[in-house]
């Protein structure tokens, strides 16, 4: 393709070494430091906080997250950090 664009996997690559917020297809989220990923967007994260559907938090020092159930990745994001979440 001659069109210049930012490829999705390039964006993920730029995040290696920084904080990332992972939203799963279910009501579960993870926030951690991205150590690496593969072609399937399986991810290795460290210093992780897991947020479940009820809002409970669990701390995990290092995880391999299966890319199958990932919905979105937000660079530098924290669930209750800079991005406002409003309920209606």
């Amino acid at each position: 393709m001659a069109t210049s664009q930012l490829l999705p996997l390039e964006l993920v690559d730029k995040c290696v070494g920084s904080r990332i917020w992972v939203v799963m297809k279910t009501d579960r989220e993870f926030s951690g430091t991205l150590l690496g990923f593969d072609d399937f967007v399986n991810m290795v994260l460290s210093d992780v906080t897991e947020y479940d559907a009820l809002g409970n938090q669990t701390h995990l020092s290092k995880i391999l997250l299966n890319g199958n159930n990932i919905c979105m990745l937000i660079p530098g994001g924290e669930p209750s950090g800079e991005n406002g979440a409003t309920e209606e």
Partner: protein
Amino acid sequence: MADVTTADQLDDSVVSEPLDLVRLSLSERVFVKLKGDREIRGTLHGYDSHCNLVLSEVEETVYVMDDDSDVLKTIKKQSEMLFVRGDAVVLISPPQRT
């Protein structure tokens, strides 16, 4: 088929397959419906053959449903930049007129 390179595929102005429609939306606002009762609106910066997406200036709407499939509440979130995994994408479209 997409795996044989033809002159048409090297020509950015030709729309011959579904992902060509996505290409037309590069740098434009798009509306994306995702699995898990979510919708996002953002500026499309990149995509690939899996429908993985890069979007900026994003507003996400999460519809929280009860057991009877009624909408309990909606949650709106904003993000400057995000990656969407392609297998969660249901549809990509120009923004709806509201």
